[in-house]
């Protein structure tokens, strides 16, 4: 409760500072709208449901692509950890492509898929996939050999060992890879949405882009705040609980 109150006080102070800067009129109101204007824009966007629709469209792209990235990346990571040939080929490829900022996939996706949902999905998958492959591969190779050996003596066999020993044992690595994949995917999707207009649905990135085109700064800032809030929400509701569980179980410090 105390932490919540101090956080609340901090943000109130931040907004007050913003209002004060607005009142001083150093910048034109076109460049720096007041907090009230931003809230009014957000209110309008909530009432006419544009915000809801855009959020749903963006999240649908993100979650679908992320899901495929993990579903494909996890087994591939297990395979590269298991077979040297795959590690030397696919593993090295993944390592290389992971260093490529995922925004760089956008032009290629546009040329391959045109201005379609597939292009968006492709960008998100490319953001997720390589991180997940590498993290899984690293995680599996860090599993102490004594765990599978112990499992063997207890009657565990190949597939069971993979699912019930090696996979959970490498979970701390896999989760941090998933988190990184999420961050990459989220960033590249925003870039892609700002960069290209896709007529099948306007995501949050597109609202941001329209805000700029109409010089509607309150829209730009309002959408930015929404994007930040979504990022925070995902971190607090999805990753934080998993990480807390891992830290508690493994006894690693936060």
């Amino acid at each position, binding site marked *: 409760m105390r932490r919540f109150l101090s956080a609340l006080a901090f943000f109130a102070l931040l907004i007050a500072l913003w209002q004060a800067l607005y009142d001083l009129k150093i910048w034109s109101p076109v460049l720096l709208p007041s907090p009230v204007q931003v809230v009014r824009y957000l209110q309008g966007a909530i009432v006419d449901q544009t915000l809801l629709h855009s959020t749903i469209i963006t999240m649908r792209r993100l979650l679908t692509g992320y899901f495929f990235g993990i579903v494909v990346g996890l087994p591939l990571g297990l395979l590269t950890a298991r077979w040297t040939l795959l590690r030397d080929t696919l593993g090295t490829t993944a390592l290389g492509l992971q260093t490529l900022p995922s925004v760089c996939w956008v032009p290629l996706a546009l040329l391959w898929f045109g201005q379609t949902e597939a292009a968006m999905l492709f960008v998100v998958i490319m953001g997720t996939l390589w991180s997940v492959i590498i993290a899984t591969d690293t995680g599996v190779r860090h599993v102490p050999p*004594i765990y599978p050996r112990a499992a063997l003596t207890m009657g565990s066999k190949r597939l069971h060992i993979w699912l019930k020993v090696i996979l959970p044992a490498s979970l701390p690595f896999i989760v941090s890879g998933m988190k990184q994949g999420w961050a990459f995917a989220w960033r590249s999707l925003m870039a892609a949405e700002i960069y290209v207009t896709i007529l099948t649905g306007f995501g949050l990135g597109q609202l941001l882009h329209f805000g700029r085109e109409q010089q509607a700064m309150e829209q730009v800032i309002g959408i930015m705040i929404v994007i930040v809030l979504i990022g925070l929400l995902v971190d607090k509701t999805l990753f934080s609980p998993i990480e807390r569980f891992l830290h508690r179980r493994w006894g690693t410090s936060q």
Partner: protein
Amino acid sequence: MFRPKTGSVTQELELVAPSKLSIDNVSKSFHTATGNVLALDRVSLNVNEGEFVCLVGPSGCGKTTLLNIIAGLEKPDSGTVLTDGKPVTGPGRDRLVMFQESALFPWLNAFGNVLFPLKLKPNLSNKDRRDVAKYYLELVGLTRFERANIHELSGGMKQRVALARALAPNPRVLLMDEPFAALDALTREQFYGDLQTIWKERKKTIVFVTHNVREACCLGDRVLLFSPNPGRIQEEFHVDLPRPREMNTSELATYAARIMRSLKQQAATTT
């Protein structure tokens, strides 16, 4: 004591006959960076049903290798290992290992670790499995800590969970590789009494590796002294002392002194 009620659990907890181990002419060498190491050189050894045998000797004399071969985790270059007349071809639930480090799974709590081998046993309901796990956690005195995460347990408690996990599938043979080596003296002494009680209660054939001669005399019906390079059984000692044995008795000290003498001679001749 926790008393499971259903018939299937009682059946699961029933004593199984301990195995007889016949190890015949087992050799094993490893290729290392410094050349070939003959870890075991034609080692032969019989362990009777329900016998407690201790293997002692300096490090590198092949004790762990022999244990791994009995466990089926490694294959000998030559020679055979039989349990009750049947050749060992791989790991099996009838021979469970308690490793030097606890090898407990950090992603499961204490209870989950003991449950792990039971989940691999067919013909048990989940309720039965939980009851059996509870029984063994109580047997090692850790009921209060069943929900504990592994890192929250002390070294001694970890090894207790490991013991419960090894006992849970009701094996015929228990293979223990220096299980108390990392524990402090006080915790270890507590274990000696408990292990003897559990051994008497659960009737297992136990092969116990240690480099602590007194520990070997306290626990073993028989103590086998290994010598290194190449790994061989050098000498065999029968410990005819009543049980339960106390660690600090003069009789035990006499046995230990005899074995220590042989160990010192060995060290003198090999260097």
